């Protein structure tokens, strides 16, 4: 479970999304725990706040740009200050990772200098499961959990970053887990950021379908890689008193027997 003889020391700067920081700190803690257990040095830059996605997706691109630029300068400087190490940025969200890796290219397309920073940071930024599977080359992190799990593909992780199999491999490698794929596992849960309050009835009708698929899968635990989706699905499950547990992948991987 340890790294395969890394040539250089490896250090991860965690990019904690504002949702995780504010509402779900346990997800960030779990991620730190999993990374440290794998022998990775972990650091958190306290100046970080948000990547700018809420404004960008709502059409306020000027506001988004200012916030994104702040994010960019914090992480660019940090990575450049660590010349002797293999440094990475790791984030427990497909959506926020794709904001940095995909949409920053659009935001800064007219500023060559900032675009350079975007590309520098982009190649070092990984979504949590992607980092474990492709950089650490690990699917078994030594976790144990007793339950039947189904996995919801969050849209940005799946379609913007193309990550589908890694999270499933990680889940299946957890001791004691039975994995069950649900129908329409790749259908949007209806969150979509402000979409969920701009068109709540449409959003909830999409959510209804997702919940039906979760229930029909027979799983007792739902795992995903984005707290946006999970607060939407989890919010309806708790309101309807449906006894399915909701868990971020990092939380699952931090479980021990």
């Amino acid at each position, binding site marked *: 479970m340890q790294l395969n003889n890394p040539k250089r020391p490896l250090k991860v700067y965690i990019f904690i999304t504002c949702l995780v920081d504010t509402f779900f700190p346990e997800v960030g803690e779990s991620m730190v725990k999993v990374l440290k257990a794998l022998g990775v040095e972990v650091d*958190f830059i306290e100046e970080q706040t*948000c990547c700018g996605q809420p404004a960008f997706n709502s059409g306020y691109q000027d506001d988004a740009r200012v916030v994104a630029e702040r994010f960019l300068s914090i992480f660019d400087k940090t990575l450049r200050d660590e010349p002797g190490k293999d440094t990475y940025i790791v984030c427990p969200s497909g959506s926020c990772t794709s904001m940095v890796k995909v949409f920053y290219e659009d935001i800064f397309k007219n500023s060559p200098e900032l675009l350079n920073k975007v590309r520098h940071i982009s190649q070092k930024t990984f979504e949590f499961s992607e980092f474990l599977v492709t950089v650490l080359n690990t699917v078994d992190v030594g976790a144990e959990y007793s339950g039947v799990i189904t996995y919801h593909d969050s*849209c940005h992780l799946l379609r913007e970053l193309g990550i589908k199999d890694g999270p499933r491999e990680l889940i299946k490698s957890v001791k004691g887990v039975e994995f069950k794929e649900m129908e329409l596992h790749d259908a949007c849960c209806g969150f979509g950021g402000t979409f969920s309050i701009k*068109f709540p009835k449409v959003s*909830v009708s999409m959510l209804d379908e997702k919940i039906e698929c979760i229930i029909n899968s027979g799983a007792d635990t739902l795992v995903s890689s984005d707290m946006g989706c999970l607060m939407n699905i989890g*919010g*309806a499950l708790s309101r309807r008193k449906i006894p399915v547990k909701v868990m971020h992948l990092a939380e699952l991987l931090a479980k021990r027997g």
Partner: protein
Amino acid sequence: MGFEEVRFEQDSEKALRNKSLQKALVNVTNRFRSARNKASEEVPDWEDLRTSAREIKKETIENLDKYLLILEESVKRTGGKVHWAKDAEEASRIIVGIAREGNVKSVVKSKSMATEEIELNSSFEDAGIKVVETDLGEYIIQLAGEHPSHIIAPAIPKTKEDISKLFSEKLGIPHYDKPEELTKVARERLRSEFLNADMGVSGANFAVAETGTIVVVENEGNARLTTTVPKIHVALVGIEKLIPHYEDLSLFLTVLARSATGQKSSTYVSFITGPKRSTDIDGPEEFHLVLLDNGRSKILASEETRESLYCIRCGACLNNCPVYRKVGGHSYGWVYSGPIGAIITPQLMGIDKAPELPFASSLCGACHDVCPVKIDFPKVLLELRKNVVESKKGGTRVLERLGIRLWRFTVEHESIYKITNKLSYYFQLPWKGSNGKLNSLPYPFSRWTDQRDFPAVAKKTFRETWKEIKHEAG
């Protein structure tokens, strides 16, 4: 279609309450979706075909001015006439003018989104000319006095009971229960319409610049009759439907049929090059190509959203859209629905007429995944959202604008961000329910908590916890 302003939220809620529509949407979109998935998996180099189709469309649209002139020359060379229409009104005037000149009393039409777009039927009716839709779905919709709700399946919400009742009322026939019986009635009625018509109006799936060929794809044979039986054939074609070369057709016909219905090829593919030649036994004596702009050149001018014009109208984005599958076509307020409607309606009609549409998507990207010409829908939607915010209508979003300002001020300053989180923790307590979540919040957050719990702000945020755990060993 009397078009004033799209009211997506209002109309979508109406659609969500309509149980038979909900059932029909699930059935139809599931059927098309699985057929399309199967048909695309059968082709080993499917992704390469999509890439090639996109490349060709991109090159065509970038050089549209050049290709349009080549198309005009080609059509003239084969004996056809070419008309240029800058908007819906001019296009209708041209087509009704051709009808008057040819002393036309009766028109048959095959399915065409462009003619829906310009509301051609009402122009014919105003001019005292009879017009009959000949695609079965469109025929049903015309009898019902409604508008299509899906690009390739216009009558989606109608059940066979609805159609039986409609035929009985409008055609004065007994109630028939079986679809075969209903189809037979429509076929008999339409056959006589074809034989009596003086003019046929079609759209086109493709217009080939180098040969002047119009290609029409269909499954019922009605478009073939529409374009061959009457003495005049008019094709109304959006300027973006152009492709440069005849040999490109095999690629486009492949991706179109497989994306639309999952067929290897449509049952009928008609290649129409000019009017009847002296050596032909039959065919129309006159062929008119009406090229429609109607806002397309405005889209062409925008580098960021230009790819909206690559669309070949297969409807795959509708069938795969989790929003369309719930709200149906009419919620999008105009002839184009689903993701493609959400991006082209605001651009063709003006962003002030449809400011909700760019937001009527969760940006899940399923449309981008299936689009045969790989239109990057999320990217275009985001650009249009920006345009809405910057437009006149955007100026009315006071609460939202204030929220974004506050958010920006907060996240720009870590100290304020921390204070805000702390204050929120105490401020939220009155709304905290027994399950530890927020069960009802004031507007606009009530739009979330009406049906879902909202998570509570943590007592200790991650950054506070970090101070305690950072030195812990792994």
